[in-house]
């Protein structure tokens, strides 16, 4: 049970709080900008806030989707990093401990794979999702009417 917990902790995303904070901050900025626009258009502060929230749509749903996407990416990166390190260590161990030429080559190959895998993560525009086919979700592209308060602006 302890080993299972340790493994779970190893792969648990340590940045989730940070991700939630950043997503919240970004969405809040958007709502603030909308409020400001409506106030400039002549609405009262309360009406502007209501109109902004209406135009934004479900804040909770957007938050959840964004945090899930960010966490998924972050978690996968972590798993890949840890796997690369483990592979590298295994490779180095084999390299050091073996005197057999064939096993020696296996060590080299493992090290090469680990280094190549790690380098791949730094290639511009390449993210772990590139390797996943299941991330192509549908886009909630919804066309709605403008808020009533905004129409007279």
């Amino acid at each position, binding site marked *: 049970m302890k080993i299972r917990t340790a493994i779970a902790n190893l792969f648990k995303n340590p940045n989730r709080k940070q991700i939630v904070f*950043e*997503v919240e*901050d*970004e*969405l809040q*900025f*958007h709502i*603030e*900008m*909308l409020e*400001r626009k409506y106030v400039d258009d002549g609405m009262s502060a309360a009406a502007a806030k209501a109109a902004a929230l209406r*135009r*934004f*749509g*479900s*804040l909770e*749903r*957007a938050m959840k*989707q*964004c945090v899930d*996407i*960010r966490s*998924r*990416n972050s978690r996968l990166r972590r798993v890949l990093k840890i796997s690369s390190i483990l592979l590298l260590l295994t490779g180095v161990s084999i390299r050091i401990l073996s005197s057999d030429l064939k096993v020696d080559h296996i060590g080299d190959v493992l090290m090469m794979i680990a280094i190549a895998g790690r380098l791949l993560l730094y290639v*511009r*525009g*390449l*993210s772990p*999702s*590139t390797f996943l086919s299941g*991330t192509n*979700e*549908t*886009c*909630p*592209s*919804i*066309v*709605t*009417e*403008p808020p009533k308060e905004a129409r007279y602006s």
Partner: protein
Amino acid sequence: MANDRTDLMQGTLELLILNTLARESMHGYGIVQRIHEAAEDLLKVEDGSLYPALYRMEERGWIKSEWGVSENNRRARFYKLTRKGRTQLEAERANWNRISKAVTRILQAT
């Protein structure tokens, strides 16, 4: 009034975002505003749907984001197109042109 609502075709929002970011880097609010202005209020994209789309696009490497300071001195995340995103934009544009041409032909034929 519900009949006035039209769903964008799947992937259309991504095309609009890519096209908007082709000119300059922008924050999410700026992207939506630009789309609204360009569409002259004929299309209304629900603002909240923009962000999951942006995050997915970043995950795919089409856009990159970084924190910056907005026009009102507030911390904001700015998005910009990557080289991969520019290629994607060209592909999406070509695809859109094909679809729209095909639909127009069908409508004219019937």
